[in-house]
């Protein structure tokens, strides 16, 4: 019983990190119908920012988190301006390949600067509370709670603010909205800033939970988060959150009851079955075909 509870906590921890990254994919997709394959690598950059700030500047947790988020968001906006903006009218797939290129660039640039894996210093004292036979680590609680808070803030921004309304409007119709006086470029930049900022936050938290980081860590995590976004229904923000928690749970539970090498196999097979049953994800709606 205690074991299961422990695994649920682990699942929530991993799930919230996946969900944060998946949000970045889904937000960019919603607004540009483009898959930003560099997103997983921006997550990696977040973890490396965290390492730099904590190891060299000896900052404490809160400034590290905030500065990493801002740094990654800034990088995200620059990438959008330099690499993606010129391709807005180009075929969709050119933008995807560009994103793959940007991702490769980030990976290898980081690798060139830091050839060996890095170890993030402990930023927070990890307290373990014991309730009955269950032990809860403060780090896990922090990651879960913080992710939930970030998601709530995002949900508020998208649903309640004027900028959020503009985002939803652009994802609804890309040709009319600019005519209504919505500053499309600014809104797209804002979307990238928020989406990649969340990815950066996920990088920091991942670094706290699994402190050894390397330049290629973003690839698998990134692809898996992308899968979460698709499982939830790509373009759908709440779907991305749900997808993240589903994949986190599946991975942890498979790891808990089977040899851990089966994890990917089971997770991806479940994904295939889910996509065959619900081809447009859990919260996604099939695009009606106009004939």
């Amino acid at each position, binding site marked *: 019983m205690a074991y299961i509870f422990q695994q649920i906590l682990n699942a929530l921890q991993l799930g919230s990190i996946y969900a944060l990254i998946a949000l970045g994919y889904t937000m960019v*997709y919603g607004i540009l119908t483009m*898959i930003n394959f560099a997103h997983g690598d921006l997550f990696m950059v977040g973890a490396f920012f965290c390492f730099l700030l904590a190891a060299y500047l000896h900052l404490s947790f809160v400034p590290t988190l905030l500065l990493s988020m801002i740094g990654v968001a800034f990088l995200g906006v620059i990438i959008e301006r330099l*690499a993606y903006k*010129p*391709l807005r009218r*180009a*075929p969709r*797939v*050119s*933008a*995807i*390949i*560009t994103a*793959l*290129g*940007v*991702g*490769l*660039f980030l*990976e*290898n*640039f980081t*690798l*060139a600067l830091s*050839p060996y894996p890095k170890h993030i210093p402990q930023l927070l004292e990890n307290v373990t509370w014991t309730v009955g036979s269950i032990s809860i680590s403060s780090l896990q609680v922090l990651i879960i709670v913080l992710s939930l808070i970030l998601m709530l803030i995002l949900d508020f921004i998208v649903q309640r603010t004027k900028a959020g309304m503009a985002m939803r409007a652009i994802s609804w119709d890309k040709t009319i909205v600019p005519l209504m006086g919505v500053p499309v470029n600014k809104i797209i930049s804002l979307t990238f800033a928020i989406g990649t900022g969340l990815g950066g936050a996920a990088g920091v938290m991942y670094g706290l939970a699994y402190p050894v980081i390397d330049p290629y860590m973003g*690839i*698998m995590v990134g*692809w898996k988060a*992308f*899968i979460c976004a*698709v499982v939830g229904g*790509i373009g759908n923000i709440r779907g991305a959150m749900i997808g993240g928690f589903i994949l986190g749970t599946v991975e942890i539970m498979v790891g808990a009851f089977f*040899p851990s*090498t*089966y994890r*990917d*196999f089971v997770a*991806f*097979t479940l*994904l*295939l079955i889910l*996509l*065959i049953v619900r*081809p*447009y*994800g859990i919260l996604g709606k099939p695009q009606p*075909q106009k*004939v």
Partner: protein
Amino acid sequence: MAKIKSIYENVMSRWQALTDFKFFWPLFMITGIAFCMAASTYEFIDLYVQLILIYVGINIILTVSLNLINGYMGEFSVGHAGFMAVGAYVASLLTVHVFPPGAQNLFFPLAILAGGLAAALIGFLVAIPSFKTRGDYLAIVTLAFCMIVKSVLENIDAIGGPRGLLGMEKLTTLPWVFFWTALSVWVIRNLVYSNFGRGVLSIREDEIASDLMSVNTRQVKIIAFVVSSFFAGIAGGLFAHALQFINPRMFDIIKSTDILIMVYLGGIASIAGSIIGAVIYTILLEILRPLGVWRMVFMPLMLVLLMIYRPRGIMGLKEARMFTPLRDLVTEKLWRQKKKEAGDASP
């Protein structure tokens, strides 16, 4: 400049006429293989260059075959490395464990063919979800498939699990690579310029309209996936016997990304583009080797710049004349002659 262009046109049209000659391709194969054999026996081509040419050939097979799905059919498959893995493992297991050690050279083509067929079978299975799922969702299906293949290979201890498989002899030689590369280019070209190929293209242009114009879209998708994965499997088998060592990690998403880059660098829906893309990418990576880690920093930057200034790649949607069959032009010419004669006769 104009003169160069006219010479080019002239050469190309002659080449085209040549390729339509019935015995051209068999002759091309025989001379090519003979040349490659001579090259590898008498070593008038440097061994290092030979090795690079082998990788160029394998990459051409991978790129041309992926272009069938991603370029001609307009889907976005990211699982090509998975088919390659199937081919590599099946072929290697056959040469290492099944075929007698003395006669490896004789059985090598059979092993490669078996690898291709196994990959084609898997390709058939992947085609089934593509009936209903399209675009990003199909991309995820192929991605999941690639991950599942890798995960399955890692979990079977009998074939080495995550440690991989060794013991293959170095059977991939320049003549064989030449043979399979030329065969894949020829077959895919034939497919593209048949009515099945027009079906593939019409699915990219407008799937509903294509279905309503009597194109059996399911059949077309199966053909495209089976042919594409067959050649990916062939490339996998050649790759395994060139490197003499494989493990599941070689065939993960990073490998798929490599192939994707070659396809879009060269340009979609173009055989010439695919060949150019594969050649440039493979050779550039070799030339930039002295740069060390920074090589892989410059390559993606160049890719991004190319995409910004030429979003469709080097040859996007264009085909070099040497790959378009002359028969259409000849038929059209004959038809016009006939029409003119009929027109002259009737009034």
